[in-house]
């Protein structure tokens, strides 16, 4: 109290040092540097918010254990163990769900007026979005590593070479990044945290469950199989299964085709959603 009233009584002095901004760097350099400043901000938030750690680490572990031990006994997969079939699927499901937080965080920033402040600054107009999606990518990688460890403990044994394994993780991360951008667009359009939550998950559920992520597509009714086979979640899960050599039913040609399709999905999504999200960002304000 004493100190605060002093601030009024003594007459507040505002005069300060006016530092000159750095000039003359190309826009692309600023796009990168500004994005890094904001990525750091998002990562700090993840580390400092206990609820997020639960979402990032504990929830995926529970999924692994539940599917492995509750559904695992009942679900038959051709020519192999369910845990090996399951892990690639659950990786894809986890990064897809993890992407939803991108949109939720952006909607939250908008509600709190942070987006308005960022947009009033002379910074790169893509940085808020790239900063957030890059931070979410890092977070998803962390989650995947935790799941890999838990997976090994419960019996997941990928075959194949180290190169194939790393390629699989790389494609998975590409998918994670692409889904974050879809979610970013959703978050910017709906503008409220609650709506970002419901709209964010509503399309992810059918996409991840009507896919080969948890069960073989052949067990589904035929009308659903058509959707499930071409679903990007299935395509990526199959590519991972091929690269990890956990599904003997997949030939090398199958794997290559699934891989090409996965990369095409990732590039296609990024090519559409990065520009429309940035455009949307440039004209968005809090209510």
């Amino acid at each position, binding site marked *: 109290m004493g*100190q*605060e*009233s002093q*601030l*009024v009584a003594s*007459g*507040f*002095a*505002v*005069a*300060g*040092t*006016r*530092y*000159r*901004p*750095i*000039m003359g760097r190309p826009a692309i350099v*600023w796009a990168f*540097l*500004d994005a890094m*400043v*904001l990525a750091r*901000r998002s990562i*700090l*938030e993840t580390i*400092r*918010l206990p609820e997020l750690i639960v979402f990032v680490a504990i929830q995926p572990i529970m999924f692994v254990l539940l599917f492995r031990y509750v559904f695992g006994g009942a679900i038959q997969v051709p020519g192999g163990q369910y845990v090996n079939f399951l892990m690639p699927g659950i990786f894809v499901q986890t990064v897809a769900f993890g992407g939803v937080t991108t949109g939720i965080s952006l909607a939250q920033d908008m*509600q*709190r*007026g*942070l987006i*308005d*402040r*960022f*947009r*009033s*600054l*002379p*910074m790169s107009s893509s*940085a808020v979005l790239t900063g957030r999606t890059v931070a979410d990518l890092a977070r998803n990688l962390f989650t995947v590593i935790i799941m890999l460890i838990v997976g090994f403990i419960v019996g997941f044994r990928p075959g194949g070479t180290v190169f194939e394994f790393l390629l699989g993780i790389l494609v998975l991360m590409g998918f994670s990044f692409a889904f974050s951008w879809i979610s970013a667009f959703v978050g910017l359009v709906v503008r409220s945290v609650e709506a970002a939550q419901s709209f964010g998950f509503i399309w992810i559920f059918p996409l991840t469950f009507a896919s080969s992520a948890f069960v073989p597509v052949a067990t589904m009714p035929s009308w659903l199989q058509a959707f499930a086979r071409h679903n990007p979640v299935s395509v990526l899960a199959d590519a991972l299964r091929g690269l990890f050599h956990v599904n003997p039913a997949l030939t090398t040609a199958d794997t290559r085709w699934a891989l090409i399709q996965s990369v095409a999905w990732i590039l296609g999504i990024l090519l559409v959603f990065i520009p429309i999200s940035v455009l949307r960002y440039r*004209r968005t*304000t*809090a209510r």
Partner: protein
Amino acid sequence: MATDRAVHAEGLVKNYGRVRALDGLNLHVDEGSLLALLGPNGAGKTTAVRIFTTLLKPDAGSAQVAGFDVLKEPDRIKAHIGLAGQTVAIDEFMTGQENLEMIGRLYHLSGKDAKRRSLELLVQFDLTDAAHRIAKTYSGGMRRRLDLAASLVILPPVLFLDEPTTGLDPRSRRQMWGIISSLVSEGSTILLTTQYLEEADELANRIAVVDAGRVIAEGTSDELKLRVGGDRIEVAVARDGDLARAAEVARRHLSSDVTIDPHQRRLSGPSREGTRQLATLVREFDAAGIEITDLQLHRPSLDDVFLTLTGHQAEEEKTTELNRRWARRAS
């Protein structure tokens, strides 16, 4: 041109769907002065600020900030302004210092300068002790101070403050007023929006009253109060018989324009000198042996300004508009 630090708008129009938020707004803020944009919720104040800060594009009209056109050179404007919006726009999970450094980096200061400037601001805004605590733990007043500090990182020549004291307790509000007054005395050009006449009165060189997206009156605080009728003194007397004599005294000291309400034994008249006249009246009534039961100075409120200037209450319109919307939704 770039040394121009004024804010200027002509005929700004902005529609949100069928709602007309701005309806030909004209505005001018002189260099080094504070203009208060005074009006109720939904009058278009925030929309105007968003156009000046290049967050929104107007549907029609033109605006210049610090000598740059909002439509043609939005990027140059951004390097010359600070904005403290209606909601406190700070990151809850970063410390006070981290928040200020981040804003500094985003204004493209070097890492070292961003840090030096943030330390300077933390001292000025009395946040040094809390510098390494995450902002989530800050009180409402501290958040507002941090938010205002964030808008001053580059000491911008033009500052936009959108309802900077809404939701603050009286002490924190006083504190913010102190800070804002110092900013004006040190030469910043400030556009401030507020719902409180008291706030505009305290801080502004000039006040523009907005309603339904246009400026309906503009002038200094005194000029506006004169249009509304200014301060009034109200007196209640104990005995019916004293009322006429009391009115006589009041006419002598206030003006001939004294209104009398015999049922309540009250009279009221305009006051130019405020509290000093209260003292005079007390002495005069006492000398004349008139017993009074109530004596008060009534200052015009935003509602009075609105009632006088628009013929409707500030809040009334909003309520009926809401009702209309609910009715539409229900049908």
